[in-house]
């Protein structure tokens, strides 16, 4: 790359008047644009199909070839939410909500001070600490599962939502520390010092200087931690039973289903995914930063 870079004439980056030239992305030919649309459509079709089927009756859902224009009904959702069938997904949805929200709050409480100590007033060897956090996220959960299970059995925490909360906190802490650190690193230190010299109190400094830069970052971090906790299956499946089971564990009840149930499965899949879809689209811009553990901005 450097060979080409060195050869490139510097003048091209400026207009003749010396202003920086505004560079624009090349426009696609119509064919490439169409190709992008086709691929995007293919990727979204399963989701559209899931949503459409969830609003069909079980009979219309099980036709071949598919009946796209069948009348819409809430039958699938009524079945999933247990109207007349006796099943009740609400406890598991509430468990998922509790586990995701509470663990996210604890993650923020732990990650914010840690990120502060890794960026604004950094400890010595701060980058080693940062990479230690990252390495814990890379170790497979399944390898620590047995001791956690035995501990839960011994301490009576099996089937207790608080155990999941603690584990989800540990699972998301590295991501949160990395993301929060990169957001805090954008806080202008000169302004912090200036505010302090002008005699602004800690609260005022936080509100006027730190918050505007950091709040969007905190929001994105929370949403991403929420998604990871909401999605988690292996720990929940192993460590919870009837009381503390989460929504993904509830969904595994559909794995071996037989008969006319497709609309209900689709309703269930869509209902459980809806919070993640909302959170994900809300955090769209920061999504890649969270998924790459803060390595890509």
């Amino acid at each position, binding site marked *: 790359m450097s060979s080409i870079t060195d050869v490139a004439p510097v003048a*091209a980056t400026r207009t003749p008047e010396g202003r920086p030239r505004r560079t624009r992305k090349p426009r*696609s030919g119509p064919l490439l644009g169409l190709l992008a649309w086709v691929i995007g459509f293919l990727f979204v079709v399963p989701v559209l199909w899931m949503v459409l089927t969830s609003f069909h009756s079980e009979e219309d859902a099980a036709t071949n070839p598919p009946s796209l224009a069948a009348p819409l009904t809430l039958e699938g959702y009524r079945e999933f939410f247990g109207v007349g069938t006796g099943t009740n997904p609400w406890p598991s949805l509430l468990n998922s909500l509790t586990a995701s929200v509470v663990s996210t709050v604890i993650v923020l409480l732990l990650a914010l001070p840690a990120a502060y100590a890794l960026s604004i007033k950094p400890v010595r060897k701060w980058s080693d600490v940062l990479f230690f956090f990252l390495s814990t996220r890379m170790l497979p959960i399944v390898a620590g599962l047995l001791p956690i299970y035995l501990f839960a059995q011994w301490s009576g925490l099996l089937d207790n939502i608080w155990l999941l909360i603690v584990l989800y906190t540990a699972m998301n802490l590295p991501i949160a520390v990395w993301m929060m650190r990169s957001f805090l690193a954008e806080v202008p230190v000169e302004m912090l010092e200036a505010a302090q010299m002008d005699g602004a109190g800690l609260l005022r400094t936080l509100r006027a200087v730190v918050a505007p830069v950091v709040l969007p970052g905190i929001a994105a971090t929370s949403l991403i931690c929420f998604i990871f906790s909401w999605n988690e299956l292996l720990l929940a499946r192993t460590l919870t039973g009837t009381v503390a089971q989460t929504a993904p564990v509830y969904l595994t009840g559909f794995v071996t289903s037989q008969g006319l149930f497709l609309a209900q499965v689709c309703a269930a899949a869509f209902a459980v995914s809806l919070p993640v879809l909302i959170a994900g689209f809300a955090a769209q811009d920061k999504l890649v930063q969270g998924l790459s553990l803060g390595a890509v901005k």
Partner: protein
Amino acid sequence: MSTTLETSRGRGQQPPTPPTPPPPPPPGGALRRTSDWARRAPLLPALVFTIVVTQLPFVVTLVVSFMDWNAYYPDERGFTGFSNYASVLTDVNMREAILTTVILTVVVVLVSLLLGLGVALLLDRRFRGRGVVRTMMITPFLIVPVAAALLWKHALFNPEYGLLNGTLNGIWRLFGSDDAPQPDWITAAPLVSVEVALIWQWTPFMMLILLAGLQSRPLDVIEAARLDGASTWQIFRYMTLPHLRRYLELGALLGSIYIVQNFDAVFTITSGGLGTANLPYVIYQTFYQAHDYGRASAAGVVVVIGTIVIATLALRTVSTLFQEENAR
């Protein structure tokens, strides 16, 4: 690309350059130690929590992996040396699980990386509705993994009324034929079915990382090259691809770390049957159903050893990107 001037200016904006160790003041040693601890204090809760919850279990796993411990035979508990490892590496099921894990990971990572690269390149250009296509591409990643696996298993792969066979039937009917092929996808190609579902979910992840990489390219330099008469292929081959290398590595490594651990898709789509049981699934079964704690632990250690290799490479890539970001 970045001159020394830019680098030093960038440094000024980035606070977290390693703290210049305060000049060791001969009389103030105690003072410095106090201020060191004041700096460390906000870090300690997170650090201690992480060590206790994530590192301790691994130590226990390591110890148990050298023990003969089956919950069904509590009296026979004791240390046995390497016999668990021997049985993990000689047992047919375990060996198959290791192989399945490797195949599953390699296929899913490579295919979704290539697809992701293609889509990212398409999305890096301007065209009508680019934002909509980007949103459509991200959607698969925002379906809860279990729900996505259920969707593929029941609504798409199902031989009687799944969308795949339904579409085949629809197309055949269009041409007046009634005997469209109606394969039973999961039975015919179980591992491929799991792979397809995973590729569908992970391509958006790769695309997002690669798109971020593409957008961090120095556009002015590329335009300069174009003005100098470089062809689109030359620009891609000699400028874009080298720039993307780190992002490709990052996507591959992070993808591997996540997919080696995959449990949801295997559990849901095939329940580990038909030769699709990967290591996480087998470990789950070994300790959750067979209660063979020693062997499950040994298999867990094997997974960790495999992951450490990938993780070390991943950490190195992240570290390079991290230094570039900080120097910018």
